[in-house]
């Protein structure tokens, strides 16, 4: 009897969002009193009795108020659950049995499974029952195996049949040296719905014309890319806004012919000697970048194989140079690697002198330090916002000084001391960096005329480092129009002990006591 009442009321609500209480489908007012008895069994601790007297209008179905919400809301909740959780809700009650099948987004990860066969069966079973006419997202994350090919083909077909917006295939090579990824099916190259593709370890080889008319974001990882393929992609994606290449290879030139592309990220160039057929030869070891319309460029990751040469980035507004080189294992030391490439760093900075937002990563900073110690100037930059990633160690000081010296238009300075450097070139290590800094100070002084805002991200330990104190003291002393300096610990790694807090307070007081040439300068220490 009880069950009938409950299922009756569950089925009686409607799908509109209009509130249930006002329902014209207000059925049996006696239900209200019937649930009265159930209230005592309700373990939620919700005091129905007192609430009821306040909400005199009909508040039947209190226990099942969430179920009484329209499907769209329940589906919204399910959307935020991992797929297995969402499917489990089928067991909650008959009303929920097929709710999850309308989920617009599906995401599968083979790491949740012990065996690949279990993974493929799970995906297949889910897709079999799924019946949303349109998918917004479809993700597959799995270790790649050629046995997976026919499965992947069908899953991709399923997604494209459902006019998916975002398709991501995160496949990982079973063996780091294996070059053969998943061959994308040809029909995928003519897709008018997808706005975001993410392909990891896939072979991108379009045979006919490529047509990705809605594509805005493309991310390719661990794949071979021929230059003609890149060109096809750019020409066939008239709305492409961002392109990311992570650990790709097979190209020596990135000629961004796209009118729409605004953001380019190149994260590492994978070492594939036997595909490249180039081994340290001068031209082939270079990656030329021609991108006159992009606004944002990131060169990060491992670039041991290639030197980046920027030919044209006239519209560039922000750039991040976060790349690094590792040494050849045979005989060269890391510091030699840096020295060999300092010329390249110099050329890069020259080609980026017009960019307004410049971020210099740890490795490039080390190159600048070496140049500074050799009394080679850093190229002049027009940047207004300068971000320096550093470990604020001894070997970073000359580089920091060099950057400050060559950026006279800087208005905002961000010093990010949250990552660790790992190159300690002997040339700088044995150098008297503090004297070096002090000797240059007269030049620096003239060049902090526009600095208004300084933001420093660091952990509490850094506050005590003498290089840190040197730089902060220097900035406060010489930045004549400084308005504000903020020192932030990005996220507390642990609850600070009383001792740590006391020490930090001491340092804070010390820093706050440094002379400031700007009368309005505010130093903020949100610890």
């Amino acid at each position: 009897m009880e069950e009938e009442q409950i299922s009756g009321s569950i089925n009686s609500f409607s799908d509109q969002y209009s509130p249930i209480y006002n329902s014209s489908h207000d059925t049996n007012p006696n239900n209200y009193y019937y649930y009265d008895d159930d209230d005592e069994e309700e373990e939620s601790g919700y005091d129905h009795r007192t609430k009821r007297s306040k909400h005199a209008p009909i508040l039947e179905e209190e226990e099942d108020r969430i179920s009484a919400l329209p499907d769209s809301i329940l589906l919204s909740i399910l959307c935020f659950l991992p797929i297995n959780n969402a499917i489990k809700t089928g067991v909650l009650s008959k009303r929920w049995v097929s709710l999850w099948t309308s989920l617009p987004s599906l995401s599968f990860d083979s790491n949740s499974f012990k065996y690949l066969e279990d993974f493929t069966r799970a995906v297949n079973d889910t897709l079999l029952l799924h019946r949303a006419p349109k998918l917004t997202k479809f993700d597959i994350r799995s270790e790649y195996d050629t046995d997976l090919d026919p499965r992947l083909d069908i899953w991709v077909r399923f997604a494209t049949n459902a006019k998916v917006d975002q398709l991501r295939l995160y496949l990982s090579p079973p063996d780091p040296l294996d070059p053969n990824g998943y061959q994308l099916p040809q029909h995928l190259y003519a897709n008018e719905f997808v706005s975001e593709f993410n392909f990891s370890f896939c072979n991108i080889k379009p045979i006919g014309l490529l047509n990705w008319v809605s594509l805005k974001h493309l991310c390719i990882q661990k794949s071979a890319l021929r230059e003609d393929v890149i060109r096809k992609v750019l020409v066939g994606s008239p709305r492409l806004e961002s392109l990311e290449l992570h650990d790709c290879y097979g190209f020596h030139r990135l000629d961004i012919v796209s009118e729409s592309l605004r953001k380019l990220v190149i994260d590492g160039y994978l070492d594939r000697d036997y595909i490249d057929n180039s081994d340290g030869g001068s031209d082939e070891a270079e990656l030329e970048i021609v991108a006159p319309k992009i606004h944002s460029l990131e060169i990060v990751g491992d670039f041991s194989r290639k030197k980046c040469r920027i030919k044209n980035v006239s519209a560039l507004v922000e750039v991040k140079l976060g790349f690094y080189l590792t040494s050849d294992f045979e005989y060269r030391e890391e510091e030699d690697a840096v020295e060999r490439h300092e010329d390249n760093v110099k050329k890069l900075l020259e080609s980026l002198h017009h960019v307004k937002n410049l971020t210099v990563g740890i490795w490039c900073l080390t190159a600048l330090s070496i140049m500074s110690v050799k009394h080679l100037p850093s190229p002049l930059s027009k940047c207004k916002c300068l971000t320096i990633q550093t470990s604020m160690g001894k070997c970073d000081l000359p580089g920091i000084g060099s950057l400050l010296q060559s950026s006279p238009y800087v208005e905002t300075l961000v010093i990010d001391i949250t990552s660790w450097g790992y190159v300690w070139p002997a040339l700088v290590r044995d150098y008297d960096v503090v004297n070096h800094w002090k000797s240059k100070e007269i030049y620096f002084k003239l060049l902090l005329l526009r600095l208004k805002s300084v933001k420093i991200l660091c952990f509490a330990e850094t506050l005590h480092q003498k290089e840190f104190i040197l730089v902060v003291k220097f900035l406060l002393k010489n930045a004549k129009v400084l308005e504000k300096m903020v020192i932030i610990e990005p996220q507390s790694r642990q609850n600070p002990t009383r001792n740590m807090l006391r020490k930090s307070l001491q340092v804070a007081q010390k820093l706050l006591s440094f002379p400031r040439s700007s009368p309005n300068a505010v130093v903020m220490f949100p610890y």
Partner: protein
Amino acid sequence: MANGENQNPNPNPIEATPGAAARTITLKTADGEIFEVEEAVAMEFGTVKSFFEDDAVSATKPMPLPNVSGSALSRVITYCRRSLEIRSMIPPATSEDATAAEAVQGEGDLEAEKAAKQERKEFEAEFLKDESNEDVKELILAANYLNIKELLDFLCRSVALRIQNKSVEYARKFFGIEGDYTPEEEAQIRQEYAWAFEGVDED
């Protein structure tokens, strides 16, 4: 500024009609509580917005909200006020065709956006910290009735987090659902979806 001051009228009235900046709208909840809310905040409520758009005359009587309790409405108002404050931290977006020079002004915007994101994260974490499951459900019903998309999305996300990886029994208790399967029927479904049932926290 980091601490939301609930009494602050919103500095950026949205779609302000002339002289509307200081206007308040009166709302009356199911349990008879009266709330005077700044117009900008009240306009975050879809139901209120369409009510006043249809009827241009500003209400002399308080607008009734028969399906929302005082406590729920108070929480909702807190959320919307704070949300508006955080949104006003970000200067209006420049168009895509901004020249490089204008895009540089955007550096300040980027910083502002990051700061706003951080504020929102902290605020949202705090907002539901002490709410019981019942309170959250009540808020969902209120947000649904009042048609506040942002709040509803946030609440749905939070509910999902609360029930994630919990057992079916936990979810039933949370939603207050009486299972209507026979034991055989339930066993059948569990078997069909066996893969989804692996690895569950017992509550």
